[in-house]
């Protein structure tokens, strides 16, 4: 996977099947434009199976839960994950997020 697509907007699939459609749908659901959700939902459903579409919806739900739990409880990134994720954090500039301050040494 091309990591930069996680934080960039565009039509790049990032080496993931239907990556651009997946990202555009997530952006729409996380945003405030209901018309955009309708449009991106239709676009995504035209390229993935119904079962896969439901999986996307479930993942969006799940990470909206865990992100809030993580940020509201101030948990640090686990030491093993921290040690393994240095390149990813650097490439995506994750230290700019305020919650990086919950992990000693991350900012």
């Amino acid at each position, binding site marked *: *996977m091309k990591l930069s*697509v*996680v*934080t960039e907007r565009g039509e790049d699939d*990032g080496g*993931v*099947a*239907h*990556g651009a459609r*997946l*990202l555009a*749908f*997530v*952006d729409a*659901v*996380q945003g405030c434009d209901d018309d955009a*959700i309708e449009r991106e*939902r239709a676009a995504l*459903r035209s390229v*993935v199976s*119904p*079962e*896969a579409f*439901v*999986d*996307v*919806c*479930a*993942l*969006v*739900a*799940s*990470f*909206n*839960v*865990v*992100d*809030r*739990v*993580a*940020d*509201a*409880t*101030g*948990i*640090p*990134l*686990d030491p*093993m*994950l921290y040690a393994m994720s240095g390149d990813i954090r650097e490439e*995506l500039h*994750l*230290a700019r*997020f*305020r*919650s990086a*301050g*919950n*992990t000693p040494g*991350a900012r």
Partner: protein
Amino acid sequence: MALRVIDPDYGAAGVPVREDLKEAHRFLLDHVRAPGTWWTGQERVSIAAASRGAPACGLCQARKESLSPGAIAGRHRAAGALREDVVDAVHRIRIDPARLSKPWFDEVIAGGLAEGPYVEMVAVTALVAGLDYFARAIGIPPFPLSAPLPGEPSRYRPAAAKPEGAWVPMIAPEDASGHEADLYGEAAIVPNIVRALSLVPSEVRALRRAAETHYVPVAQISDPTVRRALDRPQMELVAARVSALNECFY
């Protein structure tokens, strides 16, 4: 009083929803309205309603757009009997979690909300956010919140919970015994996100139930071969984008 949770209606989605997801949604809706550890069923439903109502709150929108959210005064759009400081915390967690901070948390606790009720409030707020995002994504109305169940909170505080580097006390995996022996399942490694709510063990169980149906079971997270109808790179791309948009470092 309705004793049975209102069954979600997925009809408008136009796609078949997995049975395990439907069961998880029913479980979570029932969990939210039941008496908890520190809050009554009525209070938990009020927290759930406050979480759901936060996106329509004018004060929260103004704060979200402000460089200094704490400098924007006003009253939240909320109904019910929750204290204003509780509504404020619920709305901030729902709308602007990326800008929560240790000083903010300390202020909430100094204001009179103890750590146990805080953790339970976080859980209800976040779980309802998840249910709402599922409905929004799949194209159905938000799941109805059922009437609260009667009963008193258990007020159970696990003795094993202690400072572990987060803002709130947590139970270390090696200390999860007795009533908490089941808390972390069979996972060889228990990440902090699973431990985060352990000051209120029943919320860890609810979070695990949600995660194993909506993502993958904790014990399988590190196995790259585990997938659903989406392949694993697709799953991780979606997860990473959500967390990036939420500006969540974890």
